[in-house]
């Protein structure tokens, strides 16, 4: 039996010190930055954190940082029964003014946030798309208007789940 020799190379002490120094400077620099959570409506960044959340409540919190109130001014259109959960046509329209974003949450999916749309000034606050649904689920549309959140929900029965497609 032979033993493999240990590598001779070791980081030079000065080199290591320099690296450590650089790292702590970098950390200090980060610590000084003002804490600014990424909000979909506020900037151009992809809201990675919100898409990673599992539950609807956590996803809404990560995306908007506040809760929505139900409103009959948000019209959510979705089929009562979706035969194919892989392709469910969903649309939302609203009569609200100053809309800045519209988002869709599928409560029973592995990650609740499905899609979030930014609506700049001049764009009609209405969007149609097609979403996947793992099983029968509550579907929520949230409209952000004038800094407030308004929601509409609907129950969609799914006969064949959309995980395969």
């Amino acid at each position, binding site marked *: 039996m032979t033993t493999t020799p240990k590598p001779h190379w070791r980081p030079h002490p000065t080199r290591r010190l320099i690296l450590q120094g650089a790292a702590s400077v970098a950390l200090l620099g980060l610590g000084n930055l003002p804490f600014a959570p990424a909000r*979909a409506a506020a900037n151009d960044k992809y809201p990675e954190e919100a898409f990673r959340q599992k539950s609807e409540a956590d996803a809404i919190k990560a995306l908007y940082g506040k809760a929505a109130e139900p409103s009959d001014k948000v019209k959510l259109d979705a089929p009562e029964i979706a035969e194919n959960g892989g392709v469910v046509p969903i649309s939302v329209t609203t009569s609200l003014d100053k809309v800045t974003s519209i988002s869709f949450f599928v409560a029973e999916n*592995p990650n609740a*946030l*499905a899609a979030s749309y930014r*609506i700049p000034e001049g*764009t*009609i606050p209405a969007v149609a798309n*097609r979403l996947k649904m793992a099983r029968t689920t509550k579907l929520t549309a949230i409209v952000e208007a004038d800094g407030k959140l308004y929601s509409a929900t609907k129950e969609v029965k799914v006969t064949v789940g959309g995980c395969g497609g």
Partner: protein
Amino acid sequence: MASSIRVRATSTGDITEVQALIQHPMDTGLVKDSKGELIPAHFIQQLKFECNGKDVFVADWGTAVSKDPYVKFSFKGARKGDELKISWTDNKGGSDTTTAKIA
């Protein structure tokens, strides 16, 4: 290769209606292939529509958007003949861009 994006933008009065269909697998990362191996997640994260130098619609998507995604919206302020620029980027760094004339 032909563009992955198909767009129809039609204007009536001041309003332009846009419909877009994109070819993309939109893999969730949860589905196994025929050999029982997980197909890694591969999905469009951002889709952007620009007209006359201004964003008119930005979509942030997760894996729950259906395969070969479809989206429809409308906006004001463009005229027939104006160009609409559409671009997407996915989680693997892939992207595509196309332009369409508003009819």
